[in-house]
Structure formats: structure tokens, C-alpha cells
């Protein structure tokens, strides 16, 4: 059967083979050197940025840099706390601007104000609901010792009667600077603390004799 004219190519089969061979030869000639690794620059950068440290140190760094306070402000020291949170003093510089409404998402309790015995079981429950690790800052004279209401029949003479306190910030009320200083002290304390506490010690935490 005769092949019709219009089915013929411009190039003959021999020419096609030669062109293909030419392409391969050119590519082969230009591909003798391997292409440099595009991420080569990273090595140098990584050397400058990777720090080797212990797990304890990195976990404590993470913990102290994202202290989230629970909303538990029984009295007027809360206003100084609000000022400390606000733009002028801006406590969020230290990683703790997020107030958690749920104690289950918080790890710091700032006890801003007088505590009455009627309120005490609720504060103690909020503390118990917070997950470990957790810390408490006693803010102001009332939180430390009951303050001017110490001898009253209805006031708890200091939060450490019902929950363990880590840092005491004196003042009536403390200035926002004092509170921020107290938080910095707490961060120093966390940096030195063991990451995994002794389980037996943990069970005893907050219990009374």
C-alpha cells in the first residue's frame, strides 16, 4: 500500500535521529558540573543559630515565658493588675498578657485582693482546677497577711493559709512596677526549678499538715 504524500515529515528519520543525538550531546556537555545545593547557605546560618542546651532549661524557658494568669481577683488590687496589663506598663512584654477565664488553661494565679472566708473555698477550688505546673503570686498586703483586715472575723489572714504562695508582692496596692518585678522574680524562680518534680512532693503540694 502506498503511503500518501501528506503523511511525510519535513525531516527524514535519519535527520530526526541526528537532531536528537545533538540535543543529548549538548545537554551532556553542559551538565558536567553538578548544580550547587540551593540550601548551602543554611549551614553557615545554622551554625550561628542553633544552641545546644538541656531539656530542663528549654522547658523552663518555655514555662516562664508564657505565664498565663487565671482570672481570680477578689478585690481592689485587681485595678493595679489591670493597669499592669494595660498599654502603659504592658505586662505582655514578659509573655503573660493572656488572661484565662478557665483555670484549666492557666498556670499562674495572681491573688489580687482581700479574701474572705466565705470566698476562700472557691479560690481554693480554682487553684485545684489549675493544671501543674502552677504558681501563685500573693499581690498586696491583704494577700500576704490579711492587711488592715487581718483581725477581722471574716477575713483570711493571708492566702498562704489556703494555697501555697511562691512570690509575695508587698504594697497597698502594689504599683504595677512592683507587680512586674514580682513576676520577674517568679520567672527567675521557675528557671531554677526542676522540670519534673518529685511525684510524692507534687501530691503533697497544697495539702495541709
Amino acid at each position, binding site marked *: 500500500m502506498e503511503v500518501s504524500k501528506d503523511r511525510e515529515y519535513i525531516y527524514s528519520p535519519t535527520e530526526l535521529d541526528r537532531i536528537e543525538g545533538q540535543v543529548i550531546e549538548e545537554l551532556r556537555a553542559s551538565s558536567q558540573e553538578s548544580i550547587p545545593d540551593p540550601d548551602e547557605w543554611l549551614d553557615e546560618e545554622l551554625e550561628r543559630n542553633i544552641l545546644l542546651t538541656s531539656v530542663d532549661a528549654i522547658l523552663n524557658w518555655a514555662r516562664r515565658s508564657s505565664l498565663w494568669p487565671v482570672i481570680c481577683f477578689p478585690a481592689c488590687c485587681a485595678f493595679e493588675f489591670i493597669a499592669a496589663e494595660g498599654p502603659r506598663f504592658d505586662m505582655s512584654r514578659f509573655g503573660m498578657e493572656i488572661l484565662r477565664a478557665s483555670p484549666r488553661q492557666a498556670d499562674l494565679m495572681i491573688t489580687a485582693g482581700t479574701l474572705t*472566708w*466565705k470566698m476562700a473555698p472557691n479560690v481554693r477550688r480554682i487553684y485545684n482546677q489549675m493544671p501543674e505546673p502552677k504558681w501563685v503570686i500573693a499581690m498586696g498586703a491583704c494577700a500576704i497577711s490579711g492587711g488592715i483586715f487581718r483581725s477581722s*472575723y*471574716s477575713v483570711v489572714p493571708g492566702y498562704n493559709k489556703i494555697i501555697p504562695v511562691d512570690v509575695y508582692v508587698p504594697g497597698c496596692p502594689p504599683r504595677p512596677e512592683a507587680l512586674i518585678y514580682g513576676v520577674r522574680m517568679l520567672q527567675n524562680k521557675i528557671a531554677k526549678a526542676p522540670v519534673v518534680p518529685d511525684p510524692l512532693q507534687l501530691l503533697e503540694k497544697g495539702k495541709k499538715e
Partner: protein
Amino acid sequence: MTVALSGKEIASQIEEKFPGSVEESSQDSLVMKSNSLLPAATFLKDTESLKFDYLNYITAVDYYSYFEVVYQLTSLEHNHSIVIKTRCYTRENPAVPSVVGLWQGANSQEREIYDLMGISFEKHPNLKRMFLWEGFPGHPLRKDYL
């Protein structure tokens, strides 16, 4: 400005209606006998010319020999006010009739007085301690509380 009505004047009106119910009266206030407090208070609230429809506050005072419960009433319609008082001469279980049925605002204030002063209010719908807890010994606002 709210006009403070004369205690003597109101006392004479109450005496007319309920003879022997007023203990004493002065320019500022009048003292009711506690057993006739409720009918007199109803009279003060419902009489068209007086119409004391608003209870400003209730408070209580310890005078050692007796407790005094103080009510300030205001008429929002006539814009006048009066202070009425009643006394309990016993320190063991003092009681006065509750006025919650007349003025709802009395509810929490009577509870507060019951809690801190130990005066019970008869026929109060929910008479239990408010600021202190059940089992607290004594009543702290009494003069003999230590």
C-alpha cells in the same frame, strides 16, 4: 428636693387609725411598736395622701438595752419621706415583722441585718445568713460581739 415629713404629724395620723401603736415621735422620726409595724406600714404605703411606695433602706442599731430597726420611706409620687423605727427589748431572739411583702427591696437588707445583728424578721421568705456562713458563731455587729 424631697420633703422630710414631720414624725409627729405622721404619728398622729397613725394613732388615729391604730390607737396605741406609736411608742414615741419627734420631728425627725417616729417609733412604732413592733407588733403594729406591719399594719402601720401598709397604711403608710396605701394611703393616697402619703403613698410611701419606695423603701430607701433598712438598718439596725444596737443600743445595749434594746435594738432599733430603722426604715426610711419615700413617696416617689408626692416626693416626701419619713423615717420610722421599731424596737426590740430582748437580746435573745429579737424579732420584728418582715416588710418584704410591701417593699421587695427589703429582702436582702433584712437578711443582712439578720446575719450581722441577729434580729429575725417574721415571715421573711428566705431568712438565712448572707455575708457569713451557716455555723458562724454570733452576730458581729452587736456591741457585745468580740
